[in-house]
């Protein structure tokens, strides 16, 4: 059978697929995407077209309530012993709707800053991207993590305001003003991880808000570039496995989940994607260089300072979207 996998870049490397296909006889078709597009696609297909999706854990409950695009997991088909228990429980908790569990964790990591330390050594927090010293040479995504990151760096607490729409709106307005003001500093808003890497590598961009992995990978090419956990705290995310409501190959999907959560396979994925997984013991096989980079970026206080995304309440996304549009339109 064929597994149609809707996932992020790097989460299904060719070698893992080859191994899976060789072992099970199934084939895997990968469609690379991001959170918004995953949800949009599944909403358009009413949960069809794919057999397994990998949205972040905070983006499951809301869309599920709204569109019903996932089906509940049959936990009996998942080998839970392969997961780091704390992460498994946290994810299950965040993705439970009407008593049913909709996701299990796969890859986790953070968003923070990737900086060319030689040219933009003064960039330590999100708001530093607006410094004159890096004018025209910074980049970030025009997506919700940027709003949240800037909010923290401006001394606000957006997650705390999740329950209070008015308060959240107030935070958004301040962030919006800041980002509009900052816009002239921006070279371009990046969209995909590889795009950002190209921008940094070519020197067109010297500092950016980005996923931790990007920084670590670039570090191989250019020792000046690395991931920096922002002073106001990195944003922690967990990407999950969820079954689209109308996937046709649930069995293969479960097989894939159980396959990639094996420590050796998880290590392969970590080295491809650059992020650690929720696989119990998966980090054992990860090469030391990556571990070293991780440790360099994340001293203990930085780890403690990670802001983990809580589940997004329905309705907030519309506010965020409008704010992002306005930033995009500003001159």
């Amino acid at each position, binding site marked *: 059978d064929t597994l149609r996998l809707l996932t992020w870049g790097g989460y299904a490397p060719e070698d893992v697929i080859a191994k899976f296909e060789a072992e099970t006889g199934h084939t895997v078709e990968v469609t690379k995407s991001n959170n*918004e*597009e995953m*949800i*949009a696609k599944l*909403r*358009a297909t009413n949960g069809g077209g794919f057999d397994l999706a990998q949205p972040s854990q905070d983006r499951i409950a809301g*869309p599920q*309530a*709204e*569109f019903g695009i996932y089906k509940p997991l049959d936990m009996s088909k998942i080998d839970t012993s392969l997961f780091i228990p704390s992460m498994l429980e946290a994810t299950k908790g965040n993705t439970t709707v009407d008593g049913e569990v909709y996701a299990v964790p796969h890859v986790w990591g953070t968003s923070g800053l990737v900086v060319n330390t030689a040219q933009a050594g003064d960039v330590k927090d999100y708001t530093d991207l607006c410094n004159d010293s890096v004018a*025209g040479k910074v980049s970030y995504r025009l*997506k919700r993590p940027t709003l949240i990151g800037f909010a923290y760096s401006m001394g606000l607490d957006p997650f705390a305001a999740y329950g209070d729409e008015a308060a959240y709106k107030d935070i958004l307005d301040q962030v919006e003003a800041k980002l509009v003001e900052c*816009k002239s500093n*921006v*070279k*371009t*808003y990046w969209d995909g991880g590889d795009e950002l890497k190209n921008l940094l590598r*070519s*020197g*067109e961009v010297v500092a950016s808000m980005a996923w931790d992995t990007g920084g670590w990978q670039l570090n191989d090419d250019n020792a000046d570039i690395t991931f920096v956990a922002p002073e106001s705290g990195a944003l922690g995310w967990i990407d999950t496995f969820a079954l689209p409501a109308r996937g046709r190959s649930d069995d293969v999907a479960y097989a894939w989940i159980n396959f990639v959560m094996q420590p050796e396979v998880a290590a392969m994925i970590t080295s491809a994607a650059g992020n650690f997984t929720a696989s119990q013991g998966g980090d054992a096989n990860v090469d030391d260089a990556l571990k070293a980079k991780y440790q360099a970026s994340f001293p203990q206080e930085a780890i403690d300072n990670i802001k983990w995304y809580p589940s997004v309440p*329905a309705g907030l*996304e*519309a506010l965020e*979207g*409008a704010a992002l*549009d*306005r930033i*995009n*339109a500003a*001159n």
Partner: protein
Amino acid sequence: MSDRSKLTFWLLLAPLLIWLLTLIILPHVGMFLVSLREKVGVREYETGFANYAVFFNEPLYWNTFARTAYMSIAATLLTLLIGFPIAYYIAKLTRGRSKTTLFLMCLIPFWVSELVRTFGWMILLRETGVFSNLLQYVGLASGPVEMLYNDAAIMTGLVYTSMLFMVVPLVTTLDSLDDSLIEAGYDLGASGFAILREIVIPHAMPGIVSGCIVVFMLSLGNYLTPILLGGKDSLWFTGLIYSQFITRFNWELGSAFGFLLLGLSSLIVFVGLKLSRQSLGKTMAQ
């Protein structure tokens, strides 16, 4: 026999009706209905014009709308201005083999997708790209020059990508202009400019209008070029529609935007046709 020809008629009519009904008319009716759906809560909807109200109450949206319209009009005029002399050259100043060759050369860029064409421009225009390096090499610039991510880049891409749709109808109409009309004009004492204004352009009007309509529609409905070449300034109405559907999952607002775009485009085309005294059927049959 008349029974048989009736049957033939209905058999020929059927595919047309099925096509238009199921793929053009009903979908637009459906989209209109969706655009009337107001979201009031999780899986709760009411009927009304709230989505349209959102558009009119948010300056961002109608600013983008206006910007898309005038940029598209500018791109159309620019394409016409650049393309007309070329079409005239091909239609009237070359003959036989070289005419065919030049005409085909106009088509070459369209052997690849808009994506590839735009990609080519990105390689040329970016800060580490070909032009920037060339300028530094010849000493016209002291450091890297960023030519991407601005309106000029969008314009370059739009004009480039539209050129064919302007040049082809122009060449066709200009080809059909009898040379002896131009000669008669000269013979009666007209200057080159007078001939252009009084004979060539009036004759080419259907081609100009049909070229302009298509180019305008293509620019207005473009998505790739503004996104890829415009970067942070890429704002384009189709982009807004796309993001309502794809990153906001807000089909209702997206549909309303879609309808507004359709209305705008129809309106501008209608005004264009009226101003030039052409009819859609005539110009499009070019």
